[in-house]
């Protein structure tokens, strides 16, 4: 593999990892607060639809992004209402969110645009264009570093940079602020947080809303960053891969970024090379596609390290009387 090919694969990795990363950070906030969320896929899908529809109607990518976030937060609030206020089973609520999004997006899109459950193609103003960072052209001629800066780091939609900025911000918020401490505490020992006079319900709702916002950005990136509109089921399981990444990263922000980049790299390599020839052994492309899940299962089985999920995760908090 020559340097140029490597750069192209890594460039593709960044694009493929971005929605995973955003969804993964979304799940991180929600699950660290004790609300398991397998509805990442559904929220992303609904966000993608909202982004595609509003960006097409208004011709503005930013309005599309706002609509995506609003749609995703709405779904997050439904999840919150079911699992926090009414103390329902969080997994079942998450599954319901996925089904709801899968059906509702196609239904609304079909009724609205009559194009078979997709939105019409969004034109240039409605899409997040690839932005060229300053000095990309002048530095491009510098050996090694130049192409890395010009091709790999520069030339992505702004949402990509937002996604990668979310990681240090999340790490800071979770580990260095009072809010973060409480958020983590509410996922480990909500009774202790309650004893200290802090509202468990409010904290969990905040976490769920943050989750909705991040899923919204992820969906918008899919629909109007990478593509030019919404196509039914366009998330294609990315919410579940993000969930796998979250478990693999042991619910920690920096590790989550590493994992998402790894999973993105696996996808990018699988897309570039159908079959990988390793001196006699041919790795089929299917193995590369399945690898994220295989790695997660290996981790969960306890072969490598030990997963430490938030202790109160998946349980609704009931105040003692």
């Amino acid at each position, binding site marked *: 593999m020559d340097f140029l090919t490597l750069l192209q694969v890594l460039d*593709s990795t960044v694009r493929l990892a971005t929605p995973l990363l955003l969804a993964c950070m979304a799940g991180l906030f929600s699950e660290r607060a004790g609300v398991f969320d397998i509805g990442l896929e559904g929220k992303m899908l609904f966000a993608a639809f909202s982004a595609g529809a509003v960006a097409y109607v208004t011709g503005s990518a930013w309005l599309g992004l706002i609509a995506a976030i609003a749609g995703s937060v709405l779904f997050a609030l439904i999840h919150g209402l079911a699992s926090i206020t009414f103390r329902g089973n969080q997994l079942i609520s998450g599954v319901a969110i996925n089904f709801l999004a899968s059906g509702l997006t196609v239904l609304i899109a079909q009724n609205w645009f009559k194009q*078979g459950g997709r939105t019409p*193609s969004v034109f240039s103003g409605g899409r997040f264009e690839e932005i060229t960072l300053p000095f990309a052209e002048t530095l491009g001629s510098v050996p090694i570093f130049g192409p890395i800066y010009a091709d790999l780091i520069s030339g992505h939609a702004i949402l990509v940079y937002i996604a990668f900025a979310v990681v240090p911000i999340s790490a800071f918020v979770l580990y260095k602020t009072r809010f973060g401490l409480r958020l983590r505490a509410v996922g480990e020992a909500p009774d202790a947080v309650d004893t200290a006079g802090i509202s468990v319900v409010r904290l969990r709702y905040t976490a769920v809303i943050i989750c909705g916002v991040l899923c919204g950005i992820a969906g918008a990136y899919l629909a109007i960053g990478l*593509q030019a509109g919404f196509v039914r089921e*366009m998330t294609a399981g990315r919410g579940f891969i993000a969930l796998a990444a979250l478990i693999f990263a042991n619910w920690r922000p920096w590790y989550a970024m590493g994992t998402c980049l790894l999973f993105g790299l696996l*996808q990018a390599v699988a*897309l570039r090379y*159908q079959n990988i020839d390793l001196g006699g052994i041919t790795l089929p492309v299917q193995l590369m596609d399945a690898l994220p899940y295989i790695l997660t299962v290996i981790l969960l089985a306890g072969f490598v390290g030990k997963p430490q999920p938030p202790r109160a995760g998946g349980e609704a908090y009931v105040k003692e009387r």
Partner: protein
Amino acid sequence: MTFMKKLYGAAATLALTAGAAMADPALIYDLGGKFDKSFNEAAYGGAERFVSETGGSYKDFEITSEAQREQALRRFAESGFNPIVTTGFSWASVFEAVAPDYPDTKFVTIDGFVDPAKHPNVLSILFAEHEGSYLVGMMAAQASKTGTVSFVGGMDIPLIRKFACGYAQGAKAVNPDVTVISNMTGTTPAAWNDPVKGSELTKAQKAQGSDVVFAAAGGTGLGVLQTAADEGILSVGVDSNQNYLQPGSVLTSMLKRVDVAVFDSMSAGSDLETGVKALGLAQEGVGYAMDDNNAALVSEDMVAVIEAAKAKIIAGELSVHDYTSDDTCPVLDF
């Protein structure tokens, strides 16, 4: 209570007579959905033409999961619809279970193959996709400036490999030195609806030198056509005429006249002849699309070369290898 019984009885009789009186055709789409801009939408077009030309009516249904296939088929058969037309290769196995239970109903599977000896009431309509793909492959190789063309398939199944193989043969026929890159999106039905992966594949193929991409990938193909337009390279659509989706960037579309197959089956009604029907270039079952959107991209010389090959195929002087006949492709490795 007795009144209720009578009421139910009356309702049931009414339903039965209503069912018996109806011999309208029915159309069931595959998972891609009715308006997929491609395969299923072509079927819908054929059914609508049946309505406008014959004044008949039909019922259609979009399945949303694998489990609905048998359910939907039985419901239509029990309601007395005849013939029942389905689109997509996945229906064949369902027919084997359902068709014997309704010997008086005629079933049509487009793209699926059901053994006519075992199931005399099923018509399997197959297309010679390799012949149509061959022609668009010729056009792609003529339009390519880099000498590299590529193919993006949806789910990795023999049918899609048949497209790829025909395409590669056509490209090599024009230019023996042409490089053909072939990628499949995935191995699950999700591969039909993943435009993001389609885009990444297109970018990867462009990076490897390709400047014409043929997408036979359902909804994934929309991502391919979009990215090809963004990156300033050419693309080739599939099944329906997709030239209008990205005007000036879609070189042509490989047409599969699903609409003709649906129209003919519906028009024949319950007198439909069953068995196996293969629609190739000679029957105008496949072809390539020319319209205002791609007129500027295709020169008369290109068309002349393709028409010559088309005439040879129809005359039987030139045979295009069909991947599904022996599961190998002489010019392409999968």
